[in-house]
Structure formats: C-alpha cells, structure tokens
C-alpha cells in the first residue's frame, strides 16, 4: 500500500517544516506543504492528497475560506484544522463547517500522526 499523502497548509514555514518532519518520521507519510490557502487549494486539486492539515489563521485566504473553496470545488478530501484557536466557541464554529477534526497548536510532533489517524478512522 502506497504511503498516505498529506497536505499541510500553513503560512508559518517553521510549523510546516515541523509538521512535515514529524509525519514523515513517525508515520512515513508522504507530506507536501503550502504556505497559503490559495497555493494549498491548487495543490489539493492537482495532487489529491488523502488528507489536508489546514491552518486557520492565515493572511488573505484563511482556513475556513480555503475549506469553503475546496468544498465548492467538490473536493472531498477530509480536512483537519491545525489551529492555535482553542476556545470552545471556535471549535464549535469549525465543527459546523464540516471539518473532520481539530488539532490544537502547539502539537506534540510524536503523536500528531496518531491524532490524524484517529480522526480519519485510519487503522
């Protein structure tokens, strides 16, 4: 079975890098990354990853906008928000948008993959 493909969209390159590295090292997934919602959408459409790890607070297109665009484009790739917005009201709002899960920042790089697998019901 080919390794899972994960798209990380975050405007912080450092976070992109840490997330990519941890998923590669712990889960051996194929991780690609984008530093804006627009770039991420294009990548998702072209590459069709198995899951998208999406930051919420980004300039221009933020996480929810990016999600809406993806949904409008008929993309059915599960989206997980990776966000520093951890207040219950935010979480509830995000859940209404149709995300599959929310992983708060900062995350533990050693368990990030486990959390994603649990949310997406990947064995």
């Amino acid at each position, binding site marked *: 079975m080919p390794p899972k493909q994960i798209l990380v969209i975050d405007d*912080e390159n*450092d*976070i992109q*890098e*840490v*997330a990519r*590295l*941890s998923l590669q*090292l*712990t889960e051996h997934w194929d991780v690609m990354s984008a530093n804006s919602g627009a770039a991420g959408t294009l990548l998702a459409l072209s590459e069709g990853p198995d899951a998208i790890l999406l930051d919420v*607070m980004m300039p221009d297109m933020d996480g929810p906008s990016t999600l809406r665009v993806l*949904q409008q484009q008929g993309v*059915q*790739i*599960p*989206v997980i928000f990776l966000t*520093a*917005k*951890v*207040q*219950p009201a*935010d*979480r*509830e709002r995000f*859940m*209404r*948008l*149709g995300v*599959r*899960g*929310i992983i708060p*920042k*900062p*995350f*533990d*790089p*050693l368990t990030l993959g486990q959390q994603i697998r649990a*949310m*997406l*019901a990947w064995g």
Partner: protein
Amino acid sequence: MNGTCVYSIRGRLTAITMLTSAAAMLLACALLLARHIVAERGELDVQLRSFGQLIAANSEAALASNDRGQAEAALSALRATSFLAGRIYTNRGVPAATYVNGSDVAVPVHPWHADGIVRRKNGLAEIFFPIIHNGKRYGTVYIASDQEDLRDRMKSDAQSMTIIVLVSLSAAFFLSSRLQRSISGPLVELARVARLVSRNKSFSARAVHPAGDGDDEIGNLMTVFNSMLAELEQRDQKLVLYQTQLESTVEQRTAELTLANEELLAAKNAAEKAACVNAQLARQSALILNSATDGIFGVDIEGEPSFLNPAGARMLGRSLPELRGRSMHQLIHHSDASGNPLPEENCSMGLALRRGDSVTDAEDLFWRPDGTSFPVEYSATAMFDEDGNKAGAVLTFRDITDRRAIEKLKSEFVSTVSHELRTPLTSIRGALGLLSSGLLGPVAEKGQRMLEIAVANTDRLVRLINDILDLERIESGKVELTRGRIDAQSVVNQAREGLQSIADQEGIRIVVEPHAGTLWGDSDRLIQTLTNLIGNAIKFSPANTTVTLSGTAGETEFTFCVADEGRGIPEENLSSVFQRFNQVDASDSRTRGGSGLGLAICQSIVTAHGGRIWAEKNEPAGTRVQFTIPLELGESVSRPAADATMLHPATSIRHDDPAVLIVEDDSDLARVMSEALTRHGLQTLSTSSGNEALRICTEQRPSLIVLDLGLPDLDGFRVVCELRKNPAIENVPLLVYSARDVGSADQSRLRLGPTEFLTKSRGTIADFESLVLSLLAAATTRTKDEPHAA
C-alpha cells in the same frame, strides 16, 4: 371663754337664779320690815295712849283743883319714860304743866285736838288726850315721843336683813353655779363640740354628757346630736371616700385619657410620618425609576405593559401609551439575532409570570420599532401583592452594546495574544519534540537531557497560556456553564480514569468511596475541577500513599472531597492556595510543572456554580480539598430559560416535545448538533457511548437517533443491531452521521425506521438540521397516518 361670756348659758342661768333669789329675799325682807314698823308703831301708839290716859287720870284732880303743882307732879311721871315732851292744858287751853325732855322740842301752845289719836308730824308721834272726870272735861294732856328708837331698831333690822340677804345670795350663787352645770354643762359641751366641728370641719368630735347619763332632754339632745354627728361623719367619710374614689377615678380616667391622647398623638404623628415617608418614598421611587439608567418595564397579570421608565422608553424607542394593549414579547422580543421568530410561549417574561419566579439572561436582544435591535442583559421577576397573589412581572434590562464591544475587544485581544504566542511555541515545541525523540539522529546524553527540559518547559508554558485563557474566560463570565443533571459518581469516575495512568506511574493509589447524588451543573467543568484537584493530590503525594475521593449529599448541595496523604499545606496558607500563582513552595512551580492557576480555576468554576471550595488539614497527614455543587432539586429549581440544559447530556426528557438522541463521541460536535436542534425547539440527549445509547433508548424512546459509527465501545452497526431487537425502537427514525461514506451493503445493515446517511466531511450542520427535520416530519406524518400530508 367657757361660761365667762355674759351671754353664756351658764351666765344667764346664774343671773336668772340670782335675780330670782334676790327678788324673793328682798320682797320677804321688805314685808318683814314693814310688819316690823307697823308693829313698833302700834306699840308706841299704845304707850302714848296708855301714858296719856295715865297722866290724864292723875291730873284730873289737879285740874279740877286748879292745882298746878299737882299737875306738874302728874306730868313728871313721864320722866321715867323716853317720851320727849308732855303738857297739860286747862280746859281753856292754857298750859298747866309742861314736861320737856330736852331743849329743842316745840311743845304746841294749844291743844289742837283732844281725840286721843296719835299723830305723826315732823318725826314726832304726838297725842292729845282729853282729861275727863265724871263726864266733865277738865283739860287736855299732850304727850310727844320722838321715833329714834323705832328708827334705830329699823336700821338694825335692815342691817341684819342685808347680811342675811347677802349670805343667802352667796349661798344661792354657789348653789346655782353648781347646780346649773347639770343643765349648762351638756349645753356647753354641745356648744364646744359644735364649735369644734365648725372650726375643724370634722365630724369626728362627740359630745360627752358631763354627768355621764343622758336620760334627760339634754341627754337626748346630745345623743341625737352625737348620732347626727356620727351620721354626718359617716356621710362625710363616705363623701371623702366618694371624693377619693372620684378623684382616683378621675385621675385614672385622666391618665387613660392622657394615654389615649398620647397614643392618638403618636399614632397621628406616626401616620403623618408614614404618610410623609410614603410620599417621600413615592417621590424617591419615582426619582429612582426615572433616574435609573436601566430600563424598567412592568407588565400586569395579563402580560400587558403597565409601566415603563424613561430610560426604558429611550432604549426601546417607544413610550408606554404605544405599548398599551399589546404584547411585550411581540413588540420587543419577537425574533432572535438572525431574525428568526421566537415563540411567545418560551418568552422569559411570560415564564416568570406563569411560574411566579424570576429569570435572568445576560445576553438577549430587544427590538426597536424601526427594526433595529440592541443587545440586552435582563431579568424578569414576578411581582406579588400583599396577599401573595401574582400581580404581574417587572423586567429590568440594560443595553449592553458598549459592554459587549469592550468584552469583544478584550476577548479578541486575549485570543490574539494567545494565538500569537502559540504560533512560535508550536515550532519550538515541535522542533524540540523531534530532537528529543531521537528521530533526527542520536543526541549526546547531556544534550538529550537539555532537550527534555526544554520540552517540559515548553509544555508548561503552553499550559500556562491555556490556563490564563481559561481563567480569564470563566471569570469574565464569558464561559457560560452548560448545566444539566450530573451523576456525582460518574464525574468522579471520569476524572479518575483520566489520571489513573499518572497515578500508577507515581505509585499512588486512588480510592473512590461510593457516593450518590444528582447535581445541577456543567459536567465538563466539574470533571476539569476534579481533574485539577486529583492531579494536585497526586503531584504532592509521595509514592505508596492513597488519594481518596468521596462525596456527601446535603439538603441542597453536594460536597466533593479530595484527600491526600502528602506533605500537607501549612495552616496559614490553607486559604491562600486558591489565589493565582500562589504555590505553597515557590520552587513548586518549577519542579512540579504547574501553572499556578489550577486551584484558581477550580475556585472560579465552583463559584460560577454557586458553590464553595476550601482546603483543610487531613488527618493524620496531607490535605483535604472540598467543594460544593448544588444538587438537582427537580422542577422546583428555578432555571434560566436560556440555560443550555438540553444542549448537553441529560438523563430524562419531557414527553410532549420530540427528543433527539445524539450518539457521538466527539463532544464538540455533539454540542454543535445539540445546539442546532434546540434552536428548532427539539429536546436533545447526548451520549458518547453505544451502551449508554442503548440504555437511553429503552428507557426514554427518543423520536429520532443521530448515530456516529465510530464509537469507543460498541460501533454503530452493533448499536443498530441491538436496537432492532426492541419493537418499541425498531421504527424510530435514524440519521447515520459518519466520518466516512457508507457503502450500500453497509447501509442495509444500518437501517432502523426511516434512515438517512450523512458523511461528515460533505455535509454542513445546516444539511444535518434539514435532514433531522425532514425525518421527524416524515415520522410524525406516518404516526398520525394522514394520507394527504405533504
């Protein structure tokens, strides 16, 4: 005074006696004297006549013979007597012989008479006696006697009589003055008593009979007088008594009157004061109501507006006359923020009026006539009159636009800061985590140790940020407790399960003492509190000790207790441990990795629940932290209308409204779904467990089930399989809301009543809502068996 008065009875009686005696004696003496005189005179007359006769007889011869010598001799017989003079006259009237006993006696020259009758003249008694012999008259004899003897004898008699009279009078006076007392004494006594009575104005004096008996008239008089006095005295005493009684009665009545008067006056003053106070209160109330910056809105028992203060009128953009006769709810409370109509029967004001209690809402929306709205905080309270009957309700509200703006700013600031701190921390934490894991290659031992320190402290910094955010939100009231019925044992068990692995690592035994109680609170927050407390207990306990969790139900509240056997907290710090960043030992925050906010958060949560939290010494060692949470007291508990009771795990449902059971292990998603359905007036029950879902279904028979397939215990297929065995449940509508698409083969295994499938990544919450509503509508139509329904 006594008897000396000339007019006194005694004087008069004496005078009468004396006068009477004197008169009698004088009369007697006079008579005696007169008789004496008469007798003496007769005797003298006899002497005169006898001597005249004698001399006449002796001188007859001499005359007859004209012998003067003889005549003289006859006449000299007088010398032996006390006669004064004598003369013998011849027949012719010539003196024949004369005898004179003294010198100054005038012997008559002629015999004037010769009748032998004694005549008295000039103090002399004289007699002319004829000398007759043998019928022939020879001459006349004259004899005269003075009356000196008679007079002397009279004088001596008079003297004797005077003495007799005087002696007699003295005796009479003595006797009378003695005897008159028997009469005058009682009278004087009477008079004295009368005077005494008159002078002293007292009838107590009594007349005493001097003789000691009272048989006579005076005695009777005294007796009568005394009895009269006694009578008078008695009357007087009665009078005095009456007077005294009258006086005391008058005094009493006067006192009563005075008292009554005072009371009246006091009552009058009080009434005036009360009236004054009332007027003042009314003015004050009016002033307060008019000056209040909060809106105050009163409705009568019919729910019609009856009062609106100026601030309220200004905020609502309406005046009371415009409101009269119309429903408050329809005027200002008709829709929510999105413009969806709010049913009047759920209106808090109406609820307060109907239930007779009060409801508050920190966030709601009121509408103005121009279609604009403003955020309000309000409280609606039923009003009762003096007899305890419902009289209406009063709504006080406050425009919280400004406050909301500030709160929003603050909240934005806090979340921005939090986010901005988290972003660099994410990179740091991730980098350090990867480095220390060794996945990037081996690190020297000391470097490894440093990396672990960096990871631990990064985690601590994250916890600190989380706690600050949490505390801030709880204390600002931003976090609303989503209250529901909570089983005390269950929250303790959940908190304990979360910490069991840490406890095992530390060698701490956690003992849960059985306890039962249904609480009214936010279960997530209670678990958070218990987790904090148990975590602390573990953290500060040495290995091989026990942390004991217990609870007791009181009348209105439940007390949780977390007790450890650790080193304990010094007495003086027991109350300050709940303050922020207050750790007993300053080094704790470094070595134990706490934020210093855990207990402060616990206190905030407990306080928000209306409970108390405190720490005390545990015997024999360690600390015991206890806190109270209100018990669920059934329908009598006043519950805010806007309370999220139905948004969260609840264990019972009302049977009149449709109830939806949400079986979903993601609590955030469950909450979102629950809120969405509540907005449509549906009741919801939530559970994250398949077994629990089966239990609720058999007990409550929900109108619809929302089922997630990936559950921690039973998966969705097993749940449906079990539900199908229950005839009461097998036709209940089902919405399978799963993470992945369900294939058609699987779909047939998942059908219950009318069943729909929704994949989480595709459907939004709005899709979810419309599916639930259409399923419920279909089920209702089917149940009612109405063939022409849409």
